[in-house]
């Protein structure tokens, strides 16, 4: 599971208010490089929950990866932004699409219900009596 998926996933456990954002506890993660797509990143930026994304990078032990405030569209559109190693576009790309959480836990912020991540797959299953009404 990558952080773009984490940015949209919420808990549906009984007692959850929004169930979002899920707290991330990471045991093992990996990186796989892929080509950045500047247009995609510019399009997705306004739809992201930035604090949730930043919190997730902190949970990974990468507090330097993203700034506290999101990059601007101008920064992502700047000429050569996609090629600039360590630039805002590459950092956003890395955070969203290159980091894979392999083992860990997602914790519902409202109920503390834990959802294990095993071999990259979060298990969001709930028993019938645990589901939010």
């Amino acid at each position, binding site marked *: 599971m990558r952080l773009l*998926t984490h940015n*949209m*996933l919420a808990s549906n456990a009984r007692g959850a208010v929004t169930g979002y954002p899920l707290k991330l506890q990471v045991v093992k993660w990996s990186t796989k490089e892929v080509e950045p797509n500047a247009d*995609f990143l510019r399009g997705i930026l306004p*739809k992201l929950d930035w604090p949730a994304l930043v919190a997730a990078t902190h949970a990974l032990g990468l507090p330097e990866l993203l700034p506290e405030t999101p990059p601007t569209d101008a920064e992502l559109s700047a000429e050569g932004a996609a090629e600039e190693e360590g630039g805002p576009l590459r950092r956003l790309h890395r955070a969203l699409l290159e980091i894979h959480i392999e083992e860990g836990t997602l914790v519902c912020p409202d109920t503390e219900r834990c959802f294990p991540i095993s*071999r990259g797959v*979060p*298990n*969001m299953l*709930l028993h019938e009596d645990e589901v939010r009404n």
Partner: protein
Amino acid sequence: MKLKQLEGLLGDLRQFSRPKVELEQYATGPHIASRMLYTVENSFEDITGKVVADFGCGCGTLAVASSLMDAEHVVGIDIDLHALEIAQENASDLELDIDLIQCDIKNLNLRGLLVDTVVMNPPFGTNNKGADMEFISMGLKVASRAVYSLHKTSTREYIKKAALRNCNAISAEVLCEVTK
């Protein structure tokens, strides 16, 4: 990617060895899957560069097809871990990155507008009545652009009406009819 090439790659995917009847698991054939994704992209531009979710992905045929059609981010969701493991293998055999989530679609909680397109070959509700509408309803909640779904001819009119009346669909259209 050419249609024939897409169909060929999907034809090599691993499928269920022992499908679970209670989950209405059946493979989405390479012929229909390739044409479905090809149409979704070439007529509606809803795959390439988009965030695509495959509901009830099973062994991941539609998720893999989306990824092969250059979706930027693909999420496959299924209740069955065994199916997800096969989907994982299928994706890695083709060196594709697909995120997988184990979840019952009716209990899914996906926030915001991040998912552009939902594709699915849902349970038809033969074994679990209403399962098809649960999938449609959740798809329409989650997708910010469109939901593409396969259904039986006998339920087609009902699904069109229910999607418009009960699930806030803006429009519902039959894109393709398969005849025997």
